[in-house]
Every structure is written in C-alpha cells, then in structure tokens.
C-alpha cells in the first residue's frame, strides 16, 4: 500500500502540529500558555508551528488584551477539524493496510 501514505496531510507532518491540533480538538478555546503547557514546548517552537497551521487555515488566532497583558487564544477552524479528522482516518487506514 504505497498510496495510503499520500493521503496524509502535509500540514500535520510534525509532532508539534499534530499535538496542537489534538489539543484544539479536545478543547474549544485554548490560550497560548495552556497550549504551551499541555505540549511541554518553548514559546518560539510553538509560535512557529501555530503560524504554519494558521497559514493553512486550520487554526484561528485571536489576540486580545487582558488589562495590559496580551492574551492570545487559539481555536481550530471547521476546515482544520475536518482536515485533522481526515488525517487521523488516514493514519488508521495505514495501520490496517
């Protein structure tokens, strides 16, 4: 089955991106710090991967201020949820083949 591997989404071709999508699927709205904590990552590492997911249209980033502190929250877009579920299905298919 060399074809099944092509159905895997390139946007999720990294552990961190998979992790971000997993957290965003399990939770509606997640702050930068909570996301960082659940995945045990550094700021820069997380930011660059989230930016890639945002560019793909899978993650919605909204920046607000709580008092003087910037507060960034992330949510998966409908498209992102769908793409991630398809990715999971493709992984499962790979397992069975």
């Amino acid at each position, binding site marked *: 089955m060399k074809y099944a591997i092509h159905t895997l989404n390139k946007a*999720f071709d*990294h552990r961190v991106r998979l*992790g971000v999508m*997993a*957290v965003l699927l399990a939770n509606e709205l997640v702050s930068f710090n*909570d996301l960082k904590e659940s995945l045990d990552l550094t700021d820069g*590492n997380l930011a660059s991967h989230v930016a890639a997911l945002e560019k793909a249209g899978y993650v919605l980033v909204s920046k607000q201020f709580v008092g003087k502190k910037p507060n960034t929250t992330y949510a998966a877009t409908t498209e992102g949820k769908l793409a991630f579920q398809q990715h999971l299905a493709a*992984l499962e298919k790979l*397992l069975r083949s």
Partner: protein
Amino acid sequence: MKPAAQDPLAQLTEIRAIMERSSRFLSLSGLSGVGAGVVALAGTAIGHYYLRQEYGEQGYQRLFQTSEAERLAALPFLLGLALAMMAAAVLVAAVFTLRRTRRDGLRSLWTAPARRLLVALLIPVAAGGLFCLKLYLSNAVELVVPGMLVFYGLALLNGSKYTLDEIRYLGLTQIALGLVALLVPGYGLLLFGAGFGLGHIGYGLLMYNRYERPARVAAGRANIAP
C-alpha cells in the same frame, strides 16, 4: 524536535494521550478521596456526639421537631462543623494530589483542566450549600442531609467531564444515597457518613489501586533491580 514519527500507531496513541491530558485533570490522587472520607467520618462522629449531648439519644431526629430558637442555637456549631470539614477535606485532598503531581513529574497543578474541574464542582456545591442553609432555616431539617448528598453528587457528575471516570460513579452513588436519605430521614446522619465518608474512601481506594499502586510498584521494582 523530531519530525513526526513514521509509526502511525505511535502517532495515534500520542494524539489520544494529548487530547485526554489537555481536556481532563488526571492527576487526582485516590488518596485524596481516602483523606477526605476520613475527615468526613470524623466530622460525622463529632456532629453525632454534639447532637446527642444537646438533645439526648436520637439527637439528630430531635432536631427535626425542635423549636426555632433551639435550631438557631445549634446552627453556628453545625454550620461551623460543615465548613471546617469542607476546608479540612479540600486541604487533605490537595496535599495528596499535589504529591502525585510531583511524582508524575508534572510542573504545575494549576492547569486549564484543573481550573475547569474546580469551577464545575464549585458552582453546584455553592448553590447546594445555600439551598441547604435555607432548608435548615425554614424548618425542613430532615431535607438538609438528602440535599447535601444530592447536590454534591450532581457536582461530581458535572465535574467528572474533566477528570477520572470514577468520579462520575462516585457522584451517582452520592445522588442515590441522597434519595435514600429522603425516604428514611431518621438515618440521615448515618447516610451522610456513608456517602461523604465511606463513598470517598471506597472510590479513593479503587482509584489508588487502579492508577497509582501499579506505577509505584513498578517504580519500586526499578529501584531494587537497577
């Protein structure tokens, strides 16, 4: 960071674990339940001896028919006892859970799922507390214990979305005991002890045996055989 592992099974397992970990507070220690249960049993015993001393044998039942003045006189002690029990139980529970968090090597106890769990528990508990206070003041003392059990059970049921599945069954147990207490009001204090005391201890031991003891036994073996 490595690129995504080639093994799809490993990937799926990790994704599942991340989803679980990010939405549920899983570090709740079973010993927290045991500790809270022991506090509840001690509190129940103190309440029993206080009421017996004030109103003689069957002191608890006597409270149902006593005059308003007497009920108000007993309120500061009973309310104080309830609040002290809650504070002590929360403290003991926090200590054991903090210990487990440390042992698991987690950095913080105050994670998003932990906050969500606390809010989910606190809202029904606070509403139930005020509701039961009003029941007591309105001369419906026999409904106070059933009310406490049912509201607490609903709180656990509500919070179980954000933590271990056993909490859901602990909640259902409390609700059932609360409804039984409604039918046999004379046994209220006994059922209070059964629910808050034995219920916590039972489910605490169950959780400890299921999640923590295997890990500790494994860790112990690793220490013996390097």
